[in-house]
């Protein structure tokens, strides 16, 4: 017998279910008064440096139906590309946001500061992006993806360059719809399926 590897396996995921809001954004579920306010209500405070932008979109299932029960989380650096806790980071950027598909229309809204570019471990500059994590009933393991921006230089981003079928890279790029406004729809399967990440 060889030695054993002293590693623990990761706890398996389970779906967040239809009532994820109770635990993560209780006021959305109608649970009031337990916490002073929902965690991650906004990734920015007044005074954040950089451009405030709004990203709106839908999370569409394989039939093209906009899901009304999805919960999303985003994580990003400040306008200079520094994450909270890094030296010199913007104290008015927490970088983390929780938001939900609207109960009636399914549309989500993320209001934040446009992130700066961040280098990866090899020193290669990644194009500005927001990390996105999506959970819902029927999603057994939370889905990771990224929001890039069509008005940034995405041509040498190492992640986007790894996508073999070039048109699929477009699924990660938010479209500019107006000044400081972007559109980012997520398609869980079928035509135009969003690129999801194992990262």
């Amino acid at each position, binding site marked *: 017998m060889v030695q054993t590897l002293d590693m623990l396996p990761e706890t398996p995921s389970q779906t967040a279910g239809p009532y994820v809001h*109770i635990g993560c954004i209780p006021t959305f579920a109608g649970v009031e008064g337990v916490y002073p306010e929902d965690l991650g209500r906004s990734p920015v405070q007044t005074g954040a440096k950089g451009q405030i932008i709004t990203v709106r979109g839908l999370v569409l299932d*394989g039939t093209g139906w906009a899901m009304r*029960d999805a919960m999303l989380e985003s994580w990003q650096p400040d306008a200079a590309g520094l994450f909270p806790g890094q030296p010199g980071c913007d104290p008015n950027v927490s970088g983390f946001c929780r938001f939900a598909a609207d109960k009636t229309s399914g549309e989500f809204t993320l209001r934040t500061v446009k992130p700066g570019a961040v280098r990866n471990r090899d020193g290669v500059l990644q194009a500005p992006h927001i990390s996105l994590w999506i*959970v819902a009933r029927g999603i057994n393991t939370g889905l990771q993806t990224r929001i890039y921006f069509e008005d940034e230089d995405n041509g040498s981003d190492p992640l986007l360059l*790894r996508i073999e079928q070039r048109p699929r890279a477009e699924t990660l790029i938010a479209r500019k719809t107006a000044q400081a406004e972007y559109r980012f729809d997520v398609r869980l399967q079928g035509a135009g399926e969003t690129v999801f990440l194992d990262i």
Partner: protein
Amino acid sequence: MTDLKPLLPRQRRLHPVACDPDYKTSITRSPQLPLLSLESTPSEETGPRFGHGHIGALDNNLILNFSQGSAPAVGERIRVHGRVLDEHGRPVPQTLVEIWQANAGGRYRHIKDTYFAPLDPNFGGCGRTLTGDDGYYEFLTIRPGAYPWPNRVNDWRPMHIHFSVFGHSFGQRLITQMYFEGDPLIDRCPIAATIKDRSQLDRLVAPLDMQNSRSMDYLAYKFDIVLRGHRQSMFENRPEGM
């Protein structure tokens, strides 16, 4: 923050399958194309931190937190406790653990839950806490009821508590469910059955822990959680190709 380490790759075979015909909603909500696999970057290695300023004194007491201490929730009183560890077996300190659950009758306090079991006026169903320096956490709550759900004609969820855990890296993010030792509905649940490795499903079943229960007060259940680890090596940050 200055010594970011790559995350260990997620071992997907240990996790549920994305699409399982017996869990009907998963059929149209599962990606069908391969995930794009890459080594983590600072975007996944950093993550939000939450401090004690975010946590109220009753936040981890679901028996009392909805009434803010004025009246206890109905149900079998239980303490749920354990440690958050990484794949190396090291504690994950000061990390946020959130839970949510149905009440003792199997009803959620949620605008979308229409099951006719009654709401408990003193039970909200959410709680949160930070792990200690040893990765330890605990909650006081009531045992949630099993409940029927629309899937096949007569499917029931076993008693379960939903867990959301952060770790210190956004790529460690995990949502899962804790089940209770001895519940016969676990083996009949299509959601539990999305995990195909039985030993992995067993890791979601919390054993009764009499030694940590309290006489004339509560039973205890132990539930440890393992998050993705980080690669530990001196061979990092070398120029490409060296």
